[in-house]
C-alpha cells in the first residue's frame, strides 16, 4: 500500500531549539519525496524535495531508503517556522502526478 505517515500531529519547541518533523513512507516503486508547508492564512506551498538536495529556510531532509523515512530537520527553530507541514510522495519522474500526503504536523515555535 502507498502511504505516508507523520506520527506527530503537533510539535511544540522553543525558539532556537532543534526541530525534527518525522515522515515515514510505504511505496512499492521509486518514490519522490516532498515537504509542503502551509503558513497561517496562506496556501500550501512546496518547501523542498529530496531530488534537489537543497536547504530551504534552513530546513533539510534526507531520504533514507533503508528506514523508508524522510524526516525534516532544522538546527535552530525560528518563530516564523510555525506552520502546518505535510510530507508527500509521488512516483519518481511522474511529471506533476498524483501526490500522496501524510496527515500533517503542526509546528509551534514559542518565543
Amino acid at each position, binding site marked *: 500500500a502507498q502511504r505516508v505517515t507523520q506520527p506527530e500531529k503537533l510539535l511544540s519547541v522553543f525558539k532556537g531549539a532543534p526541530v525534527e518533523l518525522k515522515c515515514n513512507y510505504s511505496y512499492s516503486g521509486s518514490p519522490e519525496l516532498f515537504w509542503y508547508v502551509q503558513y497561517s492564512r496562506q496556501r500550501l506551498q512546496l518547501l523542498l524535495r529530496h531530488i534537489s538536495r537543497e536547504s530551504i529556510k534552513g530546513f533539510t531532509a534526507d531520504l533514507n531508503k533503508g528506514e523508508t523515512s524522510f524526516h525534516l530537520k532544522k538546527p535552530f527553530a525560528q518563530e516564523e517556522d510555525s506552520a502546518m507541514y*505535510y510530507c508527500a510522495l509521488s512516483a519518481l519522474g511522474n*511529471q506533476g502526478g*498524483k501526490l500522496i500526503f501524510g496527515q500533517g504536523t503542526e509546528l509551534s515555535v514559542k518565543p
Partner: protein
Amino acid sequence: DAGVTQSPTHLIKTRGQQVTLRCSPKSGHDTVSWYQQALGQGPQFIFQYYEEEERQRGNFPDRFSGHQFPNYSSELNVNALLLGDSALYLCASSLSGVTNQPQHFGDGTRLSIL
C-alpha cells in the same frame, strides 16, 4: 501572476444536491489536479486532468467527476452530496512534459454540507 485561482471560496449545500467548483491554473500550466482535504487530514488525490482528459484517478466514487477546458481551466462536480463530502477542495496545477515539475496549489474551496 495570480497563481492558481479557485472559486467560490466557500459554499454551503444540503445533502443530495450537486455542486461545481472551478479552478484556473497558474499561467503556463496545462495540468490540473484536484484534492479533498477533510478537517485534520492531509489532502487526498481525487483526479488529474491533462489535454481535457482524466489522466489519473484516486479512490473516489463516480459521484466525483471533472472537466478540463481548452484554456486548461477545470471544474470539479460532485453529485448527490453527502455529509462526508464536507471538506476543503484544493486545485493544483503543473506543467506536463517537464520532469519533476512541482504542483502549485490554490487557496481551496471550503464546501459545507448541511
